[in-house]
């Protein structure tokens, strides 16, 4: 490593003497970082779970200190229930909850929630739908009353459906103009094919147009019911208060006689090549996404997966960012995420790079997926990435919203809530051999699906040279409703 000119040190020394500072103290400045003191202990609060007579589960976690509470009503079904040709239905249903309910129009609902200091946020993800709000403790009863009104008594007025549809369409166009967002959608389609997790949960232009009021009402009736719901309250609230508040706003919510809808198969048959290029003419960068099918959330190897992903791309110092950003300056950031769901999961590597380096980033990403299964992770690296994971976990519990998110993930998948306090020991117990075996089992090279979205004129040739099987599709010819993504009659090569 080249040293800086000595001149700088000399100037500093002279200035120190002139200013009369304690020069001797500078000579004392250690050349190595002082070692840490004894490690402190993180105390994780214990969730309390209760069930009301109508089947509603109430989970609360007490955190005093500030008068804040996060409330979330979580429903254990989401976008996987979107019927064929109606992609985006669960999301649209969630959006419409706050657009008119119990005799209140959309502006009145927004005004009430915001007068309480929060906002009602509703959305549908895979395997869950939810509506939540964070308010100060004195406003919690009113916030829950409002939350109950929108969840239980939405009116789905035709005019609001039209408005929400137009907004969803504009948001969709915006999302699809971002290379990595589009690449992630296409990669999920490549992995899940015609399975329930393969479609766009924000919908497509055609599917959004096809959704009618009756569809929304059916989805609401199927999903929003007390025996499919978990009310999560985290913050300045006791279990007794949680139960009383839940009873007050949700106690008379009737449980329907009809059984809960069965969850469809997430994984289907794929129809996309191992490497797909979507040509987005004029794109400022290329989005590169490499995807693999992964085990479900309930898999016995869940914590091994957490650690494996932490090594691959879970943080700044993880391998993908090390190779793509730190060593080569090819991206502002490269990362991975492992998303376990009810029926199967998805493991994604993501990076955005200047168009000409897209081919190089594809190969670096695939190389890192492969390395995870071909050699054990060195002990020191594994210890460092576990520490990163455990530290981030601890920090996520510092806010009421973060606490609610962690508890919500456990509740959504029926995992024992006490796992919230076991995370650290479970992560620490993972061995290099387990990580390697996990990667070998789930990352076979033939199973990877890569999608690159960008200005193909700048990287298409390089990519096809390294990957002759690559196929290219112009963005205009894209149909996200179809497992092969090709609009009927669309050209491509």
């Amino acid at each position, binding site marked *: 490593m080249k040293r800086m*000119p000595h001149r700088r040190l000399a100037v500093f020394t002279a200035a120190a003497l002139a200013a009369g500072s304690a020069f001797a103290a500078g000579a004392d*400045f250690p050349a190595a970082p002082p070692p840490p003191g004894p490690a402190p202990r993180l105390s994780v609060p214990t969730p309390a779970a209760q069930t009301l007579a109508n089947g509603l589960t109430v989970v609360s976690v007490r955190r005093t200190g*500030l008068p804040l509470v996060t409330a979330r009503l979580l429903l254990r079904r989401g976008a996987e229930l979107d019927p064929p040709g109606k992609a985006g239905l669960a999301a649209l249903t969630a959006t419409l909850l706050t657009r008119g309910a119990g005799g209140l129009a*959309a502006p009145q609902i927004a005004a009430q929630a915001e007068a309480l200091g929060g906002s009602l946020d509703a959305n549908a993800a895979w395997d869950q739908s939810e509506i939540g709000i964070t308010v*100060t403790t004195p*406003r919690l009863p009113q916030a829950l009353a409002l939350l109950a009104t929108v969840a239980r008594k939405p009116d789905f007025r035709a005019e609001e459906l039209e408005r929400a549809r137009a907004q969803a369409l504009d948001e969709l166009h915006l999302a699809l103009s971002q290379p990595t967002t589009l690449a992630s959608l296409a990669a999920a389609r490549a992995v899940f094919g015609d399975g329930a997790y393969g479609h766009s949960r924000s919908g497509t232009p055609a599917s959004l147009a096809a959704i009618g009021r009756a569809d929304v009402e059916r989805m609401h009736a199927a999903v929003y019911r007390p025996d499919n719901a978990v009310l999560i309250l985290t913050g300045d609230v006791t279990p007794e208060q949680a139960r009383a508040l839940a009873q007050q706003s949700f106690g008379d919510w009737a449980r329907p006689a009809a059984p809960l809808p069965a969850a469809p198969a997430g994984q289907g048959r794929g129809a996309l090549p191992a490497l797909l290029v979507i040509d987005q003419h004029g794109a400022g*960068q290329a989005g590169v996404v490499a995807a693999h099918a992964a085990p479900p959330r309930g898999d016995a190897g869940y914590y091994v997966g957490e650690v494996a992903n932490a090594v691959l791309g879970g943080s700044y110092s993880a391998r993908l960012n090390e190779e793509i950003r730190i060593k080569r300056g090819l991206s502002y950031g490269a990362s991975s995420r492992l998303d376990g769901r009810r029926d199967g999961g998805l493991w994604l590597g993501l990076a955005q790079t200047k168009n000409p380096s897209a081919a190089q980033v594809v190969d670096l990403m695939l190389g890192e997926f492969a390395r995870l299964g071909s050699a054990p992770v060195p002990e020191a690296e594994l210890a*460092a990435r576990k*520490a990163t994971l455990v530290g981030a976990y601890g*920090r996520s519990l510092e806010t009421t919203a973060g606490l609610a998110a962690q508890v919500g993930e456990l509740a959504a998948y029926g995992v024992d809530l006490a796992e919230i306090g076991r995370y650290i020991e479970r992560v620490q117990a993972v061995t290099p051999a387990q990580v390697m075996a996990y990667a070998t089992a789930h990352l076979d090279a033939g199973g990877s699906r890569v999608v690159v979205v960008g200005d193909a004129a700048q990287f298409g040739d390089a990519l096809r040279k390294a990957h002759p099987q690559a196929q290219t599709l112009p963005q205009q010819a894209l149909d996200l409703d179809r497992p092969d993504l090709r609009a009927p009659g669309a050209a491509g090569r």
Partner: protein
Amino acid sequence: MSRRLRSAARLAALTLLAGAAGAAAPAAELAVPPIAYHQRSLPNGLEVLSIEDHASPTVTVQVWYHVGSKDDPAGRSGFAHLFEHLMFKSTAHMHAEQMDRLTEDVGGANNASTGDDVTNYFEVIPSNYLETLLWAEAERMSNLNVDEANFKSERAVVEEEYRQSVLAQPYGKLFNAIDPHSFAVHPYKRPTIGSIEDLEAASLDDVIAFHKTFYRPDNATLIVAGDFDPKQLDAWVDRYFGWIPRPAAPIPQVAATEPARTADRRYTETSETAPLPAVALTWLIPPAKDADVVPLQVAAALLSQGESSRLYQALVYRSRVAQDVGAEVDARTGPGLFVAYAILASGHRPAEAEQQLRAEIARLADGPVDAAELDKVKTQLLTQELKQRQTAQGKAFALGQAALIEGDPARVNGDLAALQRVGAADVQRVLRRYVTGAHSVAIDYLPQAKPPAGKATSKGGAQ
């Protein structure tokens, strides 16, 4: 100099179920506990602010330097930000990325940011690593030692950051164009991210000169918040930072004064990837320390915070000309901006949104403001503050913002009291003075396959 604020006043006991049936308590009754901070200065000029908080076994260490993109050297736009990245490379006693070894690898996290006026470096670590990180921050303040290879590779990263935030984001070019079009004279007119050409022109010599000029104890504020022992903290700070010399050379200060606008101006930017047009309007506002900034923030919240806000209701909900709207106060140590923007809905033109943005701002400035609406906005802003204050890092950021941007750490608590006092007449006075009674810059943002040959067009003359 040293002073210690009294610890947070106890909140009144709150009875949960009691309020269920009644109306919401007014914002005035919403108590946000003050941030109890300790302040001292070292003989070499380093300011030290600390907040003891044992809620979590972690501590945040932050060093805020009074240097930002307004101090970019001539012909080197984006340099302060590029430099920030290089502070994670080698020093005399640390190899490149060792900051990550001392943070991420032991369960912590680190990051940094560059703004117009300040650059801050911050870590959260398990509290037993406090001494280690104080050493590391003192080390990179005094002993930075970047080599050519690291310089070039990190410059490439920053160029990718430029492409990601400006070129690949559909509305990146619009937001990046706001400062260049809004300031005529002040160096704020250079965007913080800079340009690829200026980044390419930067050299390792520039790095050395910049560190020597601005990275010095008398140009920095150290903020420590979280789980620590105050006596031990003071001893460590003295040991690791006390020896760093205060250079004799004065710290360069931006002296430019931004003249008042004499006419409305309009510019056009184009995008090859934005699916829909947008429009942004800006007005000049006083520096962050000015008492008029808090009522301007209340005005921005009345206009755009949440779906019940005036702009959302008018443009997104009722007329449906926009898919997204915003109004914000971008206050700085020097002149700042009041910004209003709309991203259009399908089938609408920027002129329609601009007319409605202006009409709603005028209605707020000159029409009636309901007491309940004002109370709603105060409750929103106070709740937002409480949420930020849940973590030691959140408190430290709030304190740094007050100390360096507003010029006085006491503002971290004083602003909340000032917020409670804002009345409708204050909101209307500041809007009339700085917005409806002043000249605007308008930027139309148009999706276009190929940008036109010329650059921005400007049209002088009052409207």
